[in-house]
């Protein structure tokens, strides 16, 4: 008997009598004999709480990367997470609650999502947002499908500087419907080639621009928006929310849809998930938006309350005609975002964003000064940048790890020595100087 169940011998007897059978085996007999597993599952013997704690801790300790000073980004960032967030997430009222289909007893979750939607709409400069998506990549793929539904066109334009993992997810989603993807080239300095884009956008449902892009470069969203709209396409901004505290909001720059990854706002790195995608759009596109949306209403007594709304777009009503197959959101991670943004507030979020930028500029200056290191792009970056080292980037990362630093993420498509390095507000000057020293030594310069 596991410690999670409480039906013991006497109870069991009484229950079998009530059902009118002699043993539990009679219940199992609903499964035809030849389809039953005639043996015990081949799994490890049960571990007690104490044993399992030790086993899990031993596994966790073998993840040496978790102890390194983290300069890796490429879609997942080591930002500061205030203590309050986990205390709120660990309230069983939030984490053991079900999807808020019974609104009268789910006002806590519903209102949190309403506040989340408001914050994401304001951050993106758009009219509305949904209750969250699986992650940034799947949100981008759903945005592509949404743009094609809205414009009734069958391809989207994607620049060469979109996160390649996002592109892979978009390709997977779009391939099934026979939809096409048009590639927009980059100028040598890293900016989008808008002159080339103009010709390529003909007949596209959307231009999808990552801001800042995968290489960390801040793109001209307004120019992209003008080009997209001139071709009758929508602009989908794949937005870094931390950068959006300082950069022009996607909505103000002309984006029709904004999506992105919310991990930077209070969600642990956790080896890649669970994270939380966000999606916001203009008011007139709301019925094309996939996923859950919470609306405000009143109860019988006129009291304010919140419910799931616009459900007629969703799978449980429209089935094969549904806007998407999404049945869940990332409610708990969206709650982490909401608490994070509440704590940070206007000034804290802006200061976080500014510190990321200042520190990235500082570190890039140090690293680009190492002998033999070359800037891959020259356009201005936000908190992440690509440099090419005179050493294979995988080897560079391994050697830096031995000295206590996770130096970045290799970008083999830009060269053997190309490394994408990210800086958050958590990194200190001492850590950045330390990394610079270590990389100098690895590249054949002075002692680390």
């Amino acid at each position, binding site marked *: 008997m596991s410690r999670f169940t409480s039906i013991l011998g006497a109870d069991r007897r009484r229950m079998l009598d009530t059902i009118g059978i002699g043993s539990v085996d009679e219940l199992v007999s609903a499964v035809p004999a030849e*389809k039953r597993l005639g043996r015990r599952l081949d799994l490890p013997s049960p571990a007690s709480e104490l044993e399992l704690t030790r086993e*899990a801790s031993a596994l966790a300790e073998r993840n040496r990367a978790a102890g390194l000073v983290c300069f890796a980004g490429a879609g997942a960032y080591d930002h500061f997470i205030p203590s309050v967030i986990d205390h709120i997430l660990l309230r069983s009222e939030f984490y053991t609650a079900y999807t808020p289909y019974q609104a009268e007893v789910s006002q806590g979750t519903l209102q949190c999502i309403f506040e989340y939607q408001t914050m994401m709409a304001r951050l993106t400069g758009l009219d509305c947002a949904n209750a969250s998506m699986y992650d940034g990549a799947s949100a981008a793929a759903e945005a592509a499908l949404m743009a094609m539904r809205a414009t009734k066109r069958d391809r989207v334009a994607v620049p060469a500087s979109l996160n390649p993992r996002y592109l892979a*997810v978009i390709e997977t989603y779009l391939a099934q419907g026979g939809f096409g993807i048009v590639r927009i080239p980059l100028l040598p300095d890293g900016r989008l080639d808008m002159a080339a884009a103009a010709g390529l956008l003909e007949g596209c449902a959307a231009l999808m621009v990552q801001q800042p892009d995968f290489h960390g470069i801040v793109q001209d969203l307004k120019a992209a928006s003008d080009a997209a709209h001139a071709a009758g396409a929508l602009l989908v901004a794949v937005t870094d929310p931390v950068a959006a505290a300082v950069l022009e909001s996607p909505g103000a720059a002309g984006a029709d849809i904004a999506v992105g990854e919310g991990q930077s706002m209070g969600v642990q790195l956790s*080896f890649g998930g669970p994270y939380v995608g966000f999606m916001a759009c203009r008011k007139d596109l709301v019925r094309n938006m996939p996923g859950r949306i919470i609306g405000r209403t009143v109860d019988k007594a006129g009291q304010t309350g919140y419910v799931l709304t616009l459900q007629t777009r969703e799978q449980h009503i429209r089935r094969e005609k549904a806007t998407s197959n999404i049945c869940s959101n990332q409610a708990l991670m969206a709650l982490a975002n909401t608490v994070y943004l509440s704590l940070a*507030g206007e000034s804290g979020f802006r200061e976080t964003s500014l510190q990321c930028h200042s520190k990235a500029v500082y570190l890039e200056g140090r690293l680009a000064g190492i002998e033999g290191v070359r800037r891959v792009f020259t356009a201005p970056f936000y908190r992440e940048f690509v440099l090419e080292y005179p050493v294979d980037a995988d080897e560079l990362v391994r050697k830096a790890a031995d000295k206590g630093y996770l130096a970045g993420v290799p970008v083999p498509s830009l060269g053997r020595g190309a490394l994408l390095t990210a800086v958050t507000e958590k990194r200190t000057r001492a850590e950045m100087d330390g990394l610079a020293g270590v990389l100098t030594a690895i590249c054949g310069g002075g002692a680390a």
Partner: protein
Amino acid sequence: MTEGTIFHESCCGRRGMDLPALDVPRVDPAATFGTDALRKGAVGLPEVSESQTVRHFVNLSTLNFHLDKEMYPLGSCTMKYNPKLNEDIARLPGFAGLHPLAPAELCEGALELMENLGRYLCEITGFDAVTLQPAAGAHGEMTGLLLIRHWHLERGDTGRLEILMPDSAHGTNPASCTLAGFRTVNVKSNAKGEVDIDDLRSKAGPATAGLMLTNPNTLGIFESGIGEITRIVHEAGGLCYMDGANMNALMGIARPGDMGFDVCHLNLHKTFSTPHGGGGPGSGPVACRQDLAKYLPDPVVIRTAEGRPAMGRARASFGRMLAFHGHFGVLARAWAYIRTLGPEGLREASETALLNANYLKALLREAFDIPYDDGPCMHEFVICGERQARKGVKTLDMAKRLLDYGFHAPTVYFPMIVHESMMIEPTETESLESLDAFAGAMLSIAREVDEKPHLVTDAPCATPVLRLDEVRAVKELEVVEGWESS
């Protein structure tokens, strides 16, 4: 009993988070990017202190029903107890602080956990290979269907675009079919609530890509003809997909792979006790037969030549479903659950789920119509509220009345083939006392329907808010603070 939004508590200058002073020269973004590229004006975030923030969200939390307080008899959703230790395990610094793109040899513990969990899930389902990437059940459905699609495409069989599906299927099934590029063909249910084999046979053919089936099905009935069903589909040239949402009934008892299925997904947030989090995160790994493994999404856990775990790519991978490796934090919880229960514990959990469901069904039979009641159910069952509906009380009213009694409502109006349906799944972690209390509440509501029906139609009355106006929420859409209808 309501709480204003956090924006109403905002007061200029308050702040709930502090940062160390900047220790490098401050860079003016206007100088770098130009003022045109910068945000004009404020974002509009609340300005509140840490203590205000904590109080706001704690106050909101008290408006929620939750599993640690009371029972969720939710059919198809398996709301079982969420072990506390698993939360601690997912939060170990070696897991929580691990960057997904760090070199594999520095992430060996996490990779080994994923490899082991994958092996456990293969053993539980009777399959050979698995992807842990899908983010939720429906995401897993799409993944599994894409495996089927690519299997046919690689054989040059491009005309197979139909997926057979019973009319009792979960709503995500047909939606996933559409996303995966297929058409849905409905198969009727017979008088026993199972797949109508003759109807299936008449619809299976050269256009059939596969079958998508939940077993036990959404009526809580094990498809007794499953061998025949999968044979018909295979003979027509299709593959068989099992929606594993109801796997909580089968752990250690029967395996999809042994039943004739080729691929299935699991809902880790149901069967393997990961908390639902108010709507997510979930996780929907997909397991399959060896000959489908080469199409699995990128990446999969492999062993290097030196025997180290690493991330690799399936030979003919159809692509990628998520930016990174899946919901690792959810995987860690499921791993911990399986390690805690072991082989006997998993089987006992399923057997107890069956026992609890059948006990509850026996108690409710006196007051409610139970269609398809020929024999024992599996871990859930469906009751029909027609008898009460004839007296003017809908199933939705009874569901709302249950909230007044301190229980969450069961799943209502699903499956769609039963009128006024209520789908009940107690799970194995409910005690006899809680089952009796729930049955007591249901029987009491049935009496109210006869004696004081307004108590039920006016429900709920003991909840933080009364019955909410959902029609108004759609007509007068207001989805953000400060919304202006146009």
